[in-house]
């Protein structure tokens, strides 16, 4: 007779004793590992305002491409994810391909930033950054690479100032916030975001992280760490894990007003897709995006489902629209080995064809 479970005593004992041994060695490894370092490429500050810094990455390779790339990252995490470590860096790959790469670092908002609006970010800081990069190229338009929420911001920015963007690239960018598989969106629908922001002011990073963890509570709060015991005696993999762990929990608070607008207009009213989005008194009309657009999304993305990203095609005016569907998740698209092999070369190839 067979059954679904075949636990042999000696195997169980081996398993448990092995786990104990790994925990013992892991404790030693954790003590010996150096402090976690993130962000590996050298970079210089070329502009800034308040807490925002605009970085230019210093390349060891000759810059051969005519148009610089400006990366616009999300507000909800730190942007060093695109340059996490030597062998996991989209930035490094783009630099190696001859691109001049810039990055907006939003900094860590504090209580004095509570009244920062989406307009302040989009028509203020992104516009300022685009200008600063463009100025270095004689006022020519730049390539904009928006990631996640930064992608949604880039779409809004490009709708408002299309003349300043040569090519638009979006990565894991939510456009349709009402797809059936969007758990975060479901949770926000009955939330009184006015009450939330009026009460908390800025939205604490820990609260945001807790929401993300509870999207998959069994895996992210428990199984992930049980799985960690498998690599506890491997210093390289352990260091990689800790680096990711740092990125996940090193999150900025969210400026209250910008959060309020983002939840109401994007998550609740889905205005980016449905229309009617107004930021800073200016109507967002994605049909004004007529330059080439490359949309990259992840097939197993639990934060931004593929359908949410794919909606971009239907709202823009560009006739030159391309998609890349990456086999992986929201995080893997930046840091997995496959991502390093596939994403930067695909971006480079796509841009090369449009230079």
């Amino acid at each position, binding site marked *: 007779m067979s059954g679904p479970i075949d636990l042999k005593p000696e195997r169980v*004992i081996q398993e448990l004793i092995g786990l104990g041994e790994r925990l013992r060695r892991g404790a030693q490894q954790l003590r010996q590992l150096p402090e976690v370092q993130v962000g590996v490429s050298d970079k210089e500050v070329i502009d*800034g305002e308040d807490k925002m810094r605009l970085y230019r990455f210093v390349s060891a390779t000759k810059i051969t491409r005519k148009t610089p790339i400006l990366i616009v990252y999300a507000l909800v995490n730190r942007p060093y994810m695109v340059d996490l470590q030597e062998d996991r860096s989209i930035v490094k790959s783009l630099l190696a391909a001859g691109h001049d790469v810039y990055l907006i670092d939003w900094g860590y908002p504090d209580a004095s930033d509570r009244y920062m609006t989406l*307009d302040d970010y989009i028509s203020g800081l992104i516009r300022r950054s685009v200008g600063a990069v*463009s100025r270095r190229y004689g006022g020519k338009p730049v390539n904009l690479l928006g990631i996640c929420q930064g992608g949604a911001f880039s779409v809004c920015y490009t709708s408002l100032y299309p003349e300043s963007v040569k090519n638009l690239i979006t990565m894991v960018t939510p456009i349709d916030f009402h797809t059936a598989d969007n758990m975060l969106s479901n949770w926000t629908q009955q939330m009184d975001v006015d*009450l939330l922001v009026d009460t908390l002011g800025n939205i604490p990073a820990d609260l945001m992280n807790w929401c993300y963890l509870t999207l998959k509570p*069994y895996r992210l709060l428990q199984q992930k*760490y049980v799985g960690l015991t498998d690599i506890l005696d491997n210093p390289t993999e352990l260091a990689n894990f800790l680096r990711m762990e740092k990125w996940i929990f090193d999150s900025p608070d969210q400026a209250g007003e910008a959060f309020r607008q983002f939840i109401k207009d994007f998550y609740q009213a889905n205005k980016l897709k449905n229309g009617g989005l107004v930021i800073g008194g200016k109507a967002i009309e994605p049909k004004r995006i007529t330059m080439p657009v490359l949309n990259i999304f992840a097939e197993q993305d639990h934060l931004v489902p593929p359908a949410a990203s794919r909606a971009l095609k239907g709202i823009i005016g560009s006739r030159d629209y391309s998609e890349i569907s990456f086999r992986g998740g929201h995080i893997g698209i930046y840091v997995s080995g496959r991502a390093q092999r596939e994403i930067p070369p695909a971006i480079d190839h796509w841009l090369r064809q449009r230079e």
Partner: protein
Amino acid sequence: MSAKATGPEAQPDWEKLRQQWWQALTAAGVPVIDQAKSWLGEGWQAPISALGATVGRPFQGEAAGRLQAATRQFLGWCHGLLNPTEAAPAMPATAAEWSNWLRQGAGPMFESINPLLTLLQGAPFGADGFDQGGLAKWLAAAGQPAEAMQAGLRDLLKLPSFGFARESEERKQEMALALLDFQTALAAYHGLLQKISQQSFGRFESKLAEREEPGRRLDSIRAVYDLWIDAAEETYAEVALSQEFREIYGKLVNRQMALRQRLQAEIERAGAEVGMPTRTELNSVHQRLHALRRQVRELEARLDSAAGASASAVPTAVAAAAPVAANSAPRRVPRSAAKQTKAAANRRQSPVAKARGPKTAAKPKAKPKVVNRPITRKPADKPMSKSTSAKKSPAAVVRRALKRLA
């Protein structure tokens, strides 16, 4: 095991042997099994505690803490798995029997130690994370509102107040009602999580049934655990995407905020009475500051527009702004970059200059100058230097803009 024993004709012997193994696994008195159980009971405490002793590396310490908590739960689950209850003394065979076995034997994993059911305990602003003392303590200090509610407390709290302290009393009544509302929402949320936990067994059983074929059977604790996680996560996802979850979750957040808002207001009142600056006052200042900043930006844009520079691809208001690196961190910028910055500063006036005449217009830069010297990284959260802030103060920008307009 001999070759003969593996043949179909030897199946009864093999099954008997499995039963013996199982008895050995679950019964006391076999030294090696007892050793393993002893390790599961107490022995694992030492290596797990060692994980926490990562002194001197705060981040590793935090990660180790999370690892500690998860492995403790996992090992608790293993312990339960190998100590079945009297209700299931025989070796389970079918998926349903296994599911039942795990539910009873490993109860703590599925019930009280289930991460889902303890979600709010560690959450910021959750049951234990609310302010410094934790909401749970606050609730304890407030007595047993749930019981009181049953005794008609709500009605009492709605009675009108009188006299000198009526306003204060009314606020306290509102706060108590908000607390009761929050407790009701919290109970509904916990009820839903409990339901998810129970439903996950049905899915787990289905998944186990798929594993009954030879070659697909689960032969390690981790494999059983992983399958249970799959089942639980899928069940959770299904419910978390439902309308019911949306409503319960929304109520939980809204009522928590309503309660918190009242608490904050009381704290602020108390602070104001002893002359402390309040959050409301600070908010007011910050709000004005941002409004002024927007006005400056608009003014700059209008000035540039008036100067006829709107045709440029470069956002012109931005072009007029001073680069930070030149002012705030000169030592961090290599000489070559500093030269570029100086040139850029000259070009700052380009939109206006262009309007005045081509001679003063900046020459477009065809190629960026590559800086190969390593640059010391600057902390992103460091505020701008005072000199920069002073130069870029709204008043200074307005003065400069007006000068340009003139």
